Structures are given as C-alpha cells and as structure tokens.
C-alpha cells in the first residue's frame, strides 16, 4: 500500500497541516449519538471498525513523516518528554519488537524487519524507508542502538506511548514518550498509579469507572489488545499541547471567533490501545492523535450536525476540564449553520464515500 506522505506540513508556527479528502473520510469520529455520553467504551482492537484507522493495529497515515519530525523538535526542546524508569528495560524491548513486527507486516513498502533469530542476542536489521533509516542491532543489547530501545522505536511512530508496569494489583506509569498530549505532564505523572494519574478527571471517579477499568486491564491478555476513543479540542492543528508549553498555545484559545472557528478549532481524537507485553508483563498504552478542523468535519454533513448537538450537551465540568470554556460558544455558533435539526442515523460512519468541493 503506498501512502502519499506530506513531509513538509507543520504542527506549529504556520500550521500548514491539512487533511486530504481521504484523511477526512477515515477520521475516527467518536460520537455515535446526538447526546454526549461518558463511557469507558473499551472494545477488542480487531482489524475492522467504522473507520479505516482501525484496519491495522498501528495506523500509519499521510502525516507520518511530518509527525515524526514534530516529535523530534519537541524532544530537542524538552528531552524530559521521554522518560523510562530503570526497571523497564524488558518492556522497552517488548515495545520495540511489537512495533517493528506490526509495522513491517502491515506496511511492507515502508518498513522491513530482517531477523536472524527471535531471541535476545539475535541480529536484527530494521529499515524505515519514509524516514531513510537502516539500522542493524543486537536484539536485547541497548548498546547497539543509537538510544534506548523505547525511545528509538517510538521516535519512528505516530502518537504517544506509555508503558504501565503491573504490580501489587495496580498499574504504574513507569515509562512514556509523550509529545502530542492533551494537556498532561509525563514529568509530573511518571511513576504514578492508575488512580493517581486519573486523579484530575471529573465526574467519572464517583461512578466507579476507574475501578472497573483497572480491574479489566489487570486481566488484559497477550495477543488480545483492546481500544477506546477519547477526544478533546485544540486550537490550530498543534500536536504539542502539553502543560509544559501551555504559555505558547494558551493564548490561541482567546483568538477564536464565530468567523474563524471553522479553520481554527480542531477536534482532537485519540485512538487509545492497550497491549499486554510478552516478557515484562507490562501494558503498552499507545495514544494515537488525529486532528480535523470543524471545516473538515462539516464536509461530512452527518458529522457537522452531530458535533453541534454533542457539544451543546456537554456537562459544564467537562467543558472546564477539557479547556473549552473560552471558545466553545464561538465553535457552536459556527457549527449551528451545519445543523438543520434533521434526524441523524446512529453510528460514527460518515455515511458518504466522497466529499463535496471545499
């Protein structure tokens, strides 16, 4: 499968990031109904679903090269975005193996992995054609890579990655590569238990959602990954909306008007997957971020109308927690023109196969 990469696009400065028509149509739109419903919505991460992003376990799209470059810029400015506690080396190799095997199997035009054996001590060669990388190394020997294995492979993947160590019937966030996060700090959260890092989330604690989710995840099985979608909104197509850089992007929230909301306001959807790792028994938690402007989304009539209804029904605590307070009214005003009140079919599919002109 060939992918028409857009290596020059940017996620900062002039924000030249754009979605092609195909990228809009495969956007993982997260709202199946008109009203906002909070749910854990975990399901098996199988190779199918209402959007093409579910077809492969680790989705690579037209933004791959540009996203890897943006990640490198963020890491250059703030190396603390990648942190691994010392006891996590086994989980680092587990992650490298999982990503290299899946990417090379699903995208043979772009990635190759040549293994002289499966076990530690074997020589492996990794070829990443979009990024122009060819690397031979000894699987299990970190000295033979330019940096530690977790950082090495996650620099070459879209999205963020956390690794949760499992002990004492709990999960601890003991490693992370976090450069495109929705306003949480790895430096602050690293080492935290499951309940601790979810501490700031409103409403859900009272209903026992996190206890149930933790119980479920502790039993996650090898070879049976699961997924869920999460969402928030961002002004401009910016990947690095970290608390660290909030002074840089915070003012953008005050720049939204009903006239420019269509271009400035982006729905930010995270495809979160969870993977049991084979040797370490840790859980890998990739968080893959997709961005689409309100203008992009409104080209799919069902999505424009639905987004207007969902955003109109958000509980105020959630509006505050997601940081929407300042610009939500302008976004709703812009979206209102795309909602004629007609009945919309349940489900997240776009319902069309081609987009009208912009």
């Amino acid at each position, binding site marked *: 499968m060939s992918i028409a990469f857009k290596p020059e696009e940017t996620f900062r400065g002039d924000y030249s990031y754009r979605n092609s028509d195909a990228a809009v149509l495969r956007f993982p739109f997260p709202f199946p109904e008109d009203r906002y419903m909070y749910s854990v919505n975990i399901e098996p991460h199988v190779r199918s679903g209402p959007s093409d992003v579910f077809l492969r376990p680790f989705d690579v799209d037209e933004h791959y090269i540009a996203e890897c470059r943006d990640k490198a810029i963020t890491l250059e400015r703030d190396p*603390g975005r990648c942190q691994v506690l010392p006891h996590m080396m086994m989980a680092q190799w587990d992650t490298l193996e999982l990503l290299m095997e899946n990417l090379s199997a699903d995208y043979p035009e772009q990635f190759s992995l040549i293994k002289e054996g499966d076990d530690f001590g074997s020589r492996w060669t990794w070829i990443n054609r979009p990024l122009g990388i060819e690397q031979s190394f000894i699987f299990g020997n970190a000295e033979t890579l330019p940096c530690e294995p977790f950082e090495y492979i996650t620099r070459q993947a879209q999205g963020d990655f956390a690794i949760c160590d499992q002990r004492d019937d709990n999960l601890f966030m003991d490693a992370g590569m976090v450069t495109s996060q929705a306003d949480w*700090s790895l*430096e*602050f*959260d*690293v*080492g*935290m238990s499951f*309940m*601790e*890092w*979810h*501490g*700031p989330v409103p409403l859900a*604690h009272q209903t026992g959602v996190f206890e149930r989710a933790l119980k479920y995840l502790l039993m996650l099985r090898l070879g049976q990954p699961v997924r869920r979608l999460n969402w928030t909104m961002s002004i401009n197509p910016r990947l690095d909306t970290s*608390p*660290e*850089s*909030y*002074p840089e992007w*915070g*003012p953008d*929230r*005050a720049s939204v008007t009903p006239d420019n909301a269509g271009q400035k306001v982006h729905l930010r959807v995270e495809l979160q997957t969870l993977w049991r790792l084979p040797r370490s028994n840790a859980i890998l938690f990739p968080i893959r971020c997709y961005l689409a402007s309100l203008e992009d989304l409104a080209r799919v009539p069902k999505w424009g109308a639905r987004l207007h209804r969902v955003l109109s029904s958000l509980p105020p605590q959630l509006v505050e927690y997601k940081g929407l307070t*300042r610009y939500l009214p302008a976004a709703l005003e812009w979206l209102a023109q795309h909602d004629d009140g007609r009945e919309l079919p349940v489900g997240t599919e776009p319902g069309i196969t081609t987009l009208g002109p912009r």
Partner: protein
Amino acid sequence: MLHSDIKSRPTYTQLEPDLSGSQHLLIVEGDTVLPGRLDSLAGTFAPVEENLHTWLVGTQAGGLGLGKVWRLPGVADVVDAFACATRGYGIGDRLYVQGTEPFLWSVAKAAAIIGFSAEQIHLHHAGSLRRRVWCTHCHTVTEDVTTSIASCAGCHRHLLVRDHFSRRLGAFMGVMVDAEAPGEVPAVEESFA
C-alpha cells in the same frame, strides 16, 4: 487530620506502632507538635520504646524522651542522615513521620532511596496545609505556598495550584493561570494556611 477528595493525594493516618516491625524510627517536624501532643505520641509508642529512635526536627520539639532521641536542625539534615546511613535498614524497620506535607514527602523520598518500601513508611499530616508547588513550565519547585495562586520561584509566572499531587516530586502541580489572557490574574486567596 487532613481530609481531601484529591485522588492523587495519599490518605494520611494517625501514627501507631506497627508491631510486625523490629526497629522503629519516628521522625517528627517539631513545629507541628501541639502542646501535649508529644506526650500522647509517647504513650502510643510505649509498646515499642525499647526499639524506638525518635528524631525531633527543627525548633521547639519539647523535652520528651521517646526511646533514643536525636535532635536535627532541619529536614535537609534528615535527608543527609539517610543518605549517609551506614547502618543497613532492612525489612524489619518501620518509619513513622509526622509533619507538613512537604516535610512528609522529603523524608519519604529519602527513605525510599535507601530501600524503605511503601509498606514500611507511615505518614501523618500535621500542622500547616502549605504546599510545595512544582511548575509545569520551568519545573522549579516553590516551597511554602499557602495561596491559591503563587508566583513561581523559577520563571515568576503566576501559577494556579491544582489539586493534583505527585508523590515522586512531593508536590502539587502549578499551571500558569493567565496563559490564555496574559495579565488576567484572578484574586489570590489564602487557601492552604
């Protein structure tokens, strides 16, 4: 007693000796001892007094004897004492700490480095509610914060003190309060006196 619905903040309990331990170390921030309170601690720890060391830290820690007593000028000396510990602490040791939250976590972190597990450490919050605040932007720690918004000791931004706590840093998160509209700083309230 500190009650809180902050999910990331630990629950602090009253101190009492864990009789499964063989050696007991009680570290008390002197400023947090109310009149008469040391007597009551002495009573509580009487069953293990034979194997009890007490470190009284800071000023006005009273004249009570709880096992073998040391006096240390400040929390930095506690951290140093742990860092230089030549006696190996082992699984029979129990550590009890009383003080303000920054004190508790400075001691707990230093103890963890020399091998104390979480189960061996008992923390009791007493005294001021003042917070240690970690700046998400420049990562500087600001001590003794008692207000809802504080000026960062490092970058001088106005930080909103969020109810999100990191045990590793022993600190609450501070986030620039006027990032979206520079200069719009809400009224500062005395919240953690």
